[in-house]
């Protein structure tokens, strides 16, 4: 845990470049309120959601602590408390609240959190596009053909749909199972990522491990999206 705290601190220091209070020009370093004039300060648009919520860039998150932090920050920035303030302060309150809400919504959900992290780290991975899952595409196209057939047949009152319906329902179950497997593999990778991420001195082997974890996560995430879409179509059409 100590190691995590260390990473967290050094990252925060790094990202919180010193700047000036918009109101009294005294130095501020990431505080929400200027120490001199107590005016609210804008959260930097450049900071990522982890930094915004005071978290290290790790995937295992204590959701209770996250929620508490979110409520605490919300209380500092909520537009309701700025109704009688100046235009600038009202604008800052709105901007900060919007950023905070998006950050919280993104990090709260584990899949969105992983998608966000992969996007953040994309610059450090050489190969931007993973090779398309040709087999999965074929499977999806063939299922879509079946769905089309099902839709066409269900508009005819005399058609016997039982067989096709049973097939599609069992396909749906198989795919849902696969989606669950992908998610559980994804969550396993959370631990791997955190383990390499907290290494203080990144060696070559750690860097390549990070790359391979990111790649696998990206592949899982995109395949999961394809599977989820076809599952949704199956549910909507066949039930």
């Amino acid at each position: 845990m100590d190691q995590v705290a260390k990473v967290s601190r050094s990252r925060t220091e790094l990202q919180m470049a010193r700047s000036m209070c918009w109101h009294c020009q005294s130095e501020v370093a990431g505080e929400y309120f200027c120490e001199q004039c107590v005016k609210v300060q804008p959260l930097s648009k450049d900071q990522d959601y982890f930094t915004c919520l005071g978290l290290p860039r790790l995937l295992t998150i204590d959701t209770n602590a996250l929620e508490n932090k979110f409520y605490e920050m919300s209380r500092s920035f909520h537009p309701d408390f700025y109704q009688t303030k100046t235009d600038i302060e009202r604008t800052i309150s709105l901007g900060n609240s919007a950023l905070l809400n998006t950050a919280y919504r993104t990090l709260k959900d584990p899949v969105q959190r992983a998608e966000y992290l992969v996007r953040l780290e994309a610059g450090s991975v050489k190969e931007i596009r993973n090779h398309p899952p040709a087999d999965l595409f074929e499977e999806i196209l063939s299922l879509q053909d079946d769905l089309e057939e099902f839709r066409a047949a269900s508009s005819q009152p005399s058609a016997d749909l039982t067989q096709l319906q049973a097939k599609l329902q069992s396909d749906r179950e198989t795919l849902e199972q696969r989606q669950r497997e992908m998610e559980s593999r994804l969550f396993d990778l959370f631990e791997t990522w955190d383990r390499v991420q907290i290494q203080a001195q990144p060696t070559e082997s750690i860097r390549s491990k990070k790359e391979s974890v990111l790649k696998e996560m990206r592949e899982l995430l995109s395949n999961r999206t394809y599977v989820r879409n076809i599952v949704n179509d199956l549910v909507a059409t066949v039930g």
Partner: protein
Amino acid sequence: MAYSEKVVDHFNNPRNMGSFKKEEDGVGTGIVGAPECGDVMKLQIKVQNDMIVDAKFKTFGCGSAIASSSLATEWLKGKTVEEAGKIKNTEIVQELNLPPVKIHCSVLAEDAIKAALADYKKKEDGKETIK
């Protein structure tokens, strides 16, 4: 956000929807996907004497993705293989008036064209080596 009239038109009356048999002579097939939204697009061309005589698509995704591929098949017909390779996603964006959040749909269509052309060329090259 509203779709442009042209997108709605392609969505309601998609041109050239359907497919050819993959094994058919002169047919090139491109299947691509957008990992962000999970759209899947299949685009096929039928080539005779280096000229694209027919094109078909099947797209499972949003209206913009369907419109982009529908438009792409319209543009492909009558073009030579070389000309087809020059179709740019920016032309699709312009024609369909796609907003920034939908630009990736036009990229997907361009990728599908490229994949179909590559598949066609690969099949042709394979034929030559057999001869």
